Every structure is written in C-alpha cells, then in structure tokens.
C-alpha cells in the first residue's frame, strides 16, 4: 500500500462517517443532538475562551504523571516477578486479585486519601496502568529465549548488568506492546476520574457542559477531542516500535 492510500483511505471513510452523522441528525430533526459542524463550532468556542488548551494540558498532565509512575514501578516489578519464581509465587495471586478491580471502584478511596486534588486522578490512572504494565513485563520474561541469558552469563555478566543489558533489552518489544495497551487504558480512565474529582480537563468538560445548560455540542466536542488525542498517543507509542533496538521483536507482516 502506498503512502497516499494509507492516509486517504481512512480519511475518506471518516469523512463519509461525518456526512452520515450530519444527514442523520437533520433527518431525525433533533434539537439536542449536535451536527458535526456544531461540534466544530463548539471546539472553536472553547479555544476562544482559552479553555481548549487548558483542559487538554490538564488531562495530559495527569496521564503523564500517573502513567509515568506506573512505568517506573511496573516495568522493574514485572521483570523481577518474571525472573525470580519465588517472587512470582508470592505476589502473583495478590496482583491477580487487585488487577480486575476497576479504577472507578477506587474513586471513593482516592477522594478520601487525596481530596479533590490532582493527586486523586493521578492515583487512579496509576492504578489503571500499573497492572497491565507489570503483567506484560512479567510475561515478556517468561517468553524470553533462554539462549540470551546463557550467552550473557557466559560473558560473565552480574545480576544487575544481566537485567539492564539482556533481560530488559530482550523483553523491550513485548514491554512496549504492554505500554501501548496501558496508555490506552490510562487515557480511558483520566476522563472518568475527572468527571468526579477535579474542575479541569476533558472529562470535567463533558460533565460541566451537560450540567450547565445541556450544551451537547460541547459534550460531543469533549468526546471527539478525547478520541483524537487517544489516536495521537497511540501513534506516538507505535513510533517507538520502529527503533532498531526493538524492531526485531515484531513480525514483519504487521507493518
């Protein structure tokens, strides 16, 4: 597939979707549900009020902290769990109990512990992304080819060097895939967290627009912005997968 097709094909389909959306709203004659044009005007209105950038930055700020902390803790924890079977046996059941609890369920506790500050949504985003990152890193060690470790041991690497230079590097392609999934979840959760705990961000925009005068154009504008930024974040992580250090770990027919 050439470059033009790769860009124009999805763009054309999206355009068709917008047209269908517009015609659908007109056909039904709804006063409440906005057309794409009204949503675009809503976004422009937000920009003129200086809220667009402020809300996007607020949401991205929370994701950066929550997700960043989850990476810093989840990756080393997962590698250690994957490598030392005693750690795995001891901690894996607890991990599997905590993992299926939705971050939304933690909201009351998050507010109790952190109040209505940025720390509450950051904590929720951290919780949402730390488990998929840990599990992916741990599984990556379990799936690693043992020959790399044997070769490294043969060259006299100590434990720390073994983790840094071999285990981490051998697991990096799978870890990146885990990060990509976790970032998607983190972005999903930032919006839910902002609906309750704070007074800025895209999640807050949606709830605020509905409560303050049923501005459904702004509600949908918030949804569209969340989707577009999600697409951008996923694109950024996928760019990491093209580096020589990890490209060997992906099947060539996938890209």
């Amino acid at each position, binding site marked *: 597939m050439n470059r033009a097709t790769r860009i124009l094909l999805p763009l054309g389909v999206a355009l068709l979707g917008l047209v269908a959306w517009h015609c659908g709203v007109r056909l039904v004659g709804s006063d409440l549900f906005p057309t794409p044009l009204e949503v675009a005007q809503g976004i422009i209105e937000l920009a003129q009020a200086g809220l667009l950038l402020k809300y996007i930055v607020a949401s991205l700020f929370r994701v950066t902290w929550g997700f960043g902390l989850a990476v810093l803790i989840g990756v080393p924890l997962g590698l250690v769990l994957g490598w030392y079977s005693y750690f795995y046996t001891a901690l894996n059941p607890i991990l599997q109990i905590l993992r299926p609890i939705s971050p939304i369920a933690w909201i009351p506790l998050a507010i109790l512990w952190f109040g209505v500050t940025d720390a509450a949504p950051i904590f929720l985003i951290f919780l949402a992304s730390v488990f998929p990152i840990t599990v992916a890193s741990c599984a990556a060690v379990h799936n690693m*080819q043992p*020959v*790399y470790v*044997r*070769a490294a*041991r*043969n*060259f*006299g690497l100590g434990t720390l060097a073994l983790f840094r230079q*071999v285990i981490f*590097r*051998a697991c*990096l392609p799978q870890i990146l895939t885990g990060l990509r999934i976790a970032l998607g979840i983190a972005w999903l959760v930032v919006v839910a967290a902002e609906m309750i705990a704070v007074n800025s961000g895209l999640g807050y925009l949606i709830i605020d627009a509905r409560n303050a005068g049923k501005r459904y154009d702004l509600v949908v504008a918030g949804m569209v912005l969340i989707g577009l930024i999600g697409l951008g974040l996923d694109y950024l992580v996928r760019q990491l997968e093209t580096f*020589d*250090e*990890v*490209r*060997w*770990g992906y099947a060539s027919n996938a890209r």
Partner: protein
Amino acid sequence: MSAPVISVRNLWMTFPGKRSGEQIHVLENVNADITPGEFVCIVGPSGCGKSTLLNIIGGFLTQTRGEVLVENAPVDGPDRRRIFVFQENGVFPWLSVEDNIGFGLRDLPPDERTATVAHYTEMVGLSGFEKSYPRELSGGMRQRVEIARALAADPDIIYMDEPFGALDFITRLKMRADLVRIWQAEKKPFFLSHMTSKRLFSSPTGSSL
C-alpha cells in the same frame, strides 16, 4: 603430548523418563581427554547426547555422576574464558553487529575495543555490515557474528554446539572451510558437536569435521 585441557571422567547424565521410575541415560560413562590447540568434534545422530555433553562441559548443565575438569579445575558454571556458541544462535538481536562482537570486551579501553572488533569482523568476512542488525542478516552471517563475538573475547577454549545445524548445504560447506582457517589462525582449542548419521562418537582431530 601436553597435559589435557579438558578431561571428562566417567561422566553420566540421567534424565527422568515419562513414566515414573523410568530413567533415561543420555550419557553413559563418557571419557575423553582434549589437549590444547586441538580441534575436536563430537559427531552423532540427533538426540544422542552431543549437546548434553557439551552443555555439561560448558557449565550450563550439571552432570548426574562423574567429573569434568577444564584446565585442571572442576566445571562450576559458565566461565568467560570459555565461550559457548549456541545451536539456536545467541546473537543479541537488539545490538548491531559491531556491538554484538564487542559484547565481551566491556572492560577494554574504547580504542582497543574498536580495533579488536574490526579485526574479528574482518576475519569472519562481515566488513561493511558493522552497523547492521541481526534481523537484516542471513542465518550464516548471524552464525559468523556469534563466532566473531566468541573469538573477540579472547577465550582459552571455544565450544560450539552444532554451529551449522540451521544452515543450508552450500553455506555449511563454506562455514566449515572458514572455521578451519580461523582455527589455524587463532590456535585455540575448538570443541564442537556436529550432526551426522555415520558415527556415534568420535573424539580426535580436525579431519573428522
């Protein structure tokens, strides 16, 4: 004849079988002496224990019974003075060719390291591919990277476990000739296992390759 560099004494390796109580003796009372500079091949059909023997000598497996002495000391785990070239190719796919070949040279000063890497890159015929990554190379080239990585670390002995097993016939012929040439240049003991259907076990020298 000089003193043996590797001594295998009454070596047994037994694995538990599928049924309980059943035992599979992969190695039964193996004895061998290898002198410095010798080029030794273990030959035999698939599954006869060549890799098991080599892995015990290399320190990656522990024997059931018997003794393996390398340079007069019992083998206790892998050792950086004795480098193993793996059957399944142990080249690190996340490092370029030159970083792979220089992997065992972490303690050398940078310029010395660069010179050594360049020397062995040329010896295995990979000049021009220094910046390439293993996924961009053919199977034979990857095997050369691993052999160069082993040589560059300046080990006393090199073990090779079916180093040409995964290669096609023509590449294998060329690699054999190259290996003999490298062995003659390096004067190091080479100890390798090699699959063939003709003989079960054969110890001495270069001609049996």
